[in-house]
């Protein structure tokens, strides 16, 4: 079902209320959101899915639409069919009114409850009434949510909820759609969150204690998450004057022993690139989160894309090691974020986490038991008087000291340097330092995350490959198709690539699906494995892939 209205009309309030109540009741829920880059007006929508089997993907089809303004139908016309039930207020809708519309007196009930501002609570009540979810769950939620504003406010909200609820219950009997969704079995304890929250939890769990960043959608959420928790977890949060300052401050802090992250989007990351190169040269850990959105330039600030893989892969001048994670689920976000910090510390390199607007702002549930903490690994040494920051070693990794810890001096230099960190133009030392900085790639590759197989490889002729936020949509599309000739492979790390892919890909036709215009990961895979990619399934409209998009693309390929 989809809720759509102007910015500021409370679509978000309805979504949060419904997700919480439906989850409490026991359903699997998922929501994703699309909105315009403006503060008021326009048309924003949120999709909520209620499913028996866990489904965390965007569906283009709309079964139930709550239209809070008259511009909604035009905005969503490609997703509405004759089967879509539209809940709207007839008098506001004019000649758009049709047989599939249900006159829903949101404003009338809201005013009855006290003010027109309650119409979103009425709408949520309608939904819960339609599905026969116990009203007590909703009133308990409202109690918890509004008690701080006083009993009177709670009471008015409850009136609004009840009016909507009765209307929904009565309407359910009259419509011709099945509202029976079985509760999932077992019902383990689950948590409900969006991707940004998962990223925040991963960051806190990773022992992060420093962030310096400049706001840019959709990367800002992490900065906000940590800013609300500085005291509780001892995190230094600094809003930098620009992205260049952000990453250089992060590296300064990291040099002094902080576990540092920066968060941004592609455009902001453009400015950070010199810092990535610096991290490579001074061998200082830094974790970089890029919440991708469509470029080039300002692009579509509030929309989604996976267009910055090449940017992360090639950012910074010169040759040095790096790693890039690309989580696709809440659990993967929490896990790869912790891994990113440990890896950055161990290998003294920049490590990237690539997400996107769709992943960060989608909400779903996750079994509490699958939210795992990794051990926070530190690799500092207490220095002695003879300490050399860039001592040559077999694996290229010099023990890392921090200033003030031990008797030694820690000297780092963006110029080519000798073992003491002193500027040098010796070609011999240069050659050895270049080797030193790159040697760790071998071990990084061996330790790379093994991609996840979706379905069964046995009878599969074609592997459909995803990375980042497309994991769930691929899983569902393959399920819908149910054709054993297809299996999926999902990469939660896109660089370096696990060596197992060579055998995994053997004798299989390769398709790659990604949310960009050129197939950046397909090209990387091709380059790294020498295999050709039979088909690139691409989308770069600013929207995520829908389940239907992927199903259609794969059906289509059958007839090629």
């Amino acid at each position, binding site marked *: 079902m989809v809720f759509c209205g102007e910015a500021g009309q409370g679509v978000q309030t309805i979504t949060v209320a419904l997700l919480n109540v439906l989850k409490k009741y026991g359903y699997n829920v998922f929501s994703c959101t699309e909105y315009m880059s403006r503060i008021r007006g326009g048309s924003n929508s949120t999709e909520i899915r209620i499913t028996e089997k866990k489904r965390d993907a965007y569906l283009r089809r709309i079964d139930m639409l709550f239209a809070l303004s008259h511009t909604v139908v035009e905005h969503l016309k490609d997703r509405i069919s004759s089967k879509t039930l539209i809940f709207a207020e007839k008098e506001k809708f004019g000649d758009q009114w049709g047989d599939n519309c249900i006159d829903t007196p949101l404003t009338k009930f809201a005013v009855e409850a006290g003010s027109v501002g309650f119409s979103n609570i009425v709408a949520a009540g309608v939904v819960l009434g339609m599905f026969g979810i116990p009203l007590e769950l909703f009133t308990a939620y409202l109690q918890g949510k509004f008690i701080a504003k006083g009993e009177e406010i709670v009471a008015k909200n409850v009136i609004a909820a009840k009016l909507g609820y009765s209307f929904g219950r009565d309407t359910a009997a009259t419509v011709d759609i099945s509202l029976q969704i079985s509760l999932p079995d077992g019902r383990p304890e689950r*948590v*409900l*969150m969006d991707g940004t929250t998962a990223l925040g*939890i991963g960051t*806190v*769990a*990773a*022992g992060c*204690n*420093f962030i*310096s960043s400049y706001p840019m959608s959709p990367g800002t959420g992490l900065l906000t998450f940590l800013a609300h928790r*500085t*005291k509780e*977890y*001892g995190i*230094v949060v*600094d809003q930098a*004057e620009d992205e*260049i*300052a*952000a990453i*250089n*401050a*992060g*590296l*300064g*802090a*990291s*040099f*002094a*022993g*902080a*576990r*540092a992250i920066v968060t941004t989007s592609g455009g902001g990351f453009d400015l950070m690139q*010199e*810092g990535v190169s*610096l991290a490579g040269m*001074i061998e200082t850990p830094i974790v970089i989160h890029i919440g991708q959105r469509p470029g080039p330039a300002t692009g579509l600030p509030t929309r989604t894309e996976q267009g910055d893989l090449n940017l992360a892969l090639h950012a910074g001048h010169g040759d040095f090691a790096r790693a890039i994670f690309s989580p696709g689920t809440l659990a993967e976000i929490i896990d790869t974020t912790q891994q990113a910090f440990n890896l950055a510390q161990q290998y003294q390199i920049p490590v990237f986490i690539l997400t996107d607007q769709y992943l960060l702002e989608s909400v779903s549930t996750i079994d*509490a038991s699958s939210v795992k*903490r990794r051990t*926070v690994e*530190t690799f*500092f040494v207490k220095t002695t008087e003879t300490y050399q920051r860039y001592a040559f070693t077999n694996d290229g990794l010099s023990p890392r000291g*921090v*200033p*003030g*810890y*031990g*008797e*030694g*001096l*820690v*000297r*780092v*230099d*963006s*110029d080519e340097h000798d073992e003491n*960190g*002193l*500027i040098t133009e010796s070609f011999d030392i240069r050659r050895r330092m270049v080797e030193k900085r790159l040697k760790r790639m071998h071990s990084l590759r061996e330790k790379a995350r093994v991609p996840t197989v979706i379905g069964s490889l046995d009878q599969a002729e074609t592997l459909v490959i995803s990375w980042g936020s497309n994991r769930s949509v691929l899983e569902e599309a393959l399920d819908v198709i149910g054709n054993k000739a297809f299996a999926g492979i999902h990469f939660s790390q896109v660089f370096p690539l696990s060596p197992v892919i060579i055998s995994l890909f053997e004798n299989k036709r390769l398709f790659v699906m990604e949310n960009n215009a050129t197939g950046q990961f397909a090209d990387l895979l091709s380059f790294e494995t020498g295999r050709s990619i039979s088909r690139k399934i691409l989308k770069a409209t600013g929207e995520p892939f829908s389940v239907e998009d992927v199903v259609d693309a794969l059906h289509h390929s059958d007839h090629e």
Partner: protein
Amino acid sequence: MNKTVTPFDMPDGIDVAWCPGCGNHMLLSAVKFALHELGIDRKNLVMVSGIGQAAKAPQYIKANMFNGLHGRSLPAAQGIKLANRNLVVVVESGDGDMYGEGGNHFLHAIRRNIDITVIVHDNMVYGLTKGQASPTSQRGMTTPIQENGVMLEPFNPLAVALALNAPFVARAYAGDVERTQEIIKQAIAFKGLSIVDVFQPCVVFNKVNTYQWFREHTVYLPENHNVRDRTGAFGLAIQQDKLPLGVFYRNEQRELYEDQIGIGTIPLYQSNPLDEEAFQKLVNNYL
């Protein structure tokens, strides 16, 4: 002049990349003397710089060092201090690095007010890139690029710093090691962001602002100069005929950023990560 004995001296025979007669040599001595006289432990000292001839200064000081990118000494230095406020953090860079490439960081570092010291080697010309105009080059100076003379109004670091209520603003002249050293001592001892712009002759590329020129065009502030008078200090900062030297302004009232955001004395490298219980508590917020 360079035969100093301090704990900050690098081993003999180290290759110093500055030209003979360069003002940098004298400024280096002044900085090392100042550090020595303040009794600073080099293990707890971090010298931070960007890129340029001046920015090589930390290479020649025995201490911890972060020789970062052109223009980016201030973000790095602030990050270091926020990660471990027990460290003494001193930034040394040139006028091009600090006021050109790093100009935005200069403005915002003043706004933050973190307890670091910023020493700017101001020779009014680009040295390492061979003689182009710098942000502080005077109008009319000809260079290989500014063939018809510099047309831009020079950047006035002191006036800008005072406009933003920088809590410690001073100017020195590298040719006078003793007094420069005294000013730098005050700057390092000051609790807050301290800025010392140091006139420093470039004997190769700047034929206008020579040792003689600086001697003729500078004058020390009088003994009775009121360092609390910001408006008066501003007047002195925009004075043209004779360029005043000394501590223009001190403001102990500005709160440190590290205090405002509640940074304790335990460095971040000693902070404890979440245990399982705290982690579960965090996750359970979303049940």
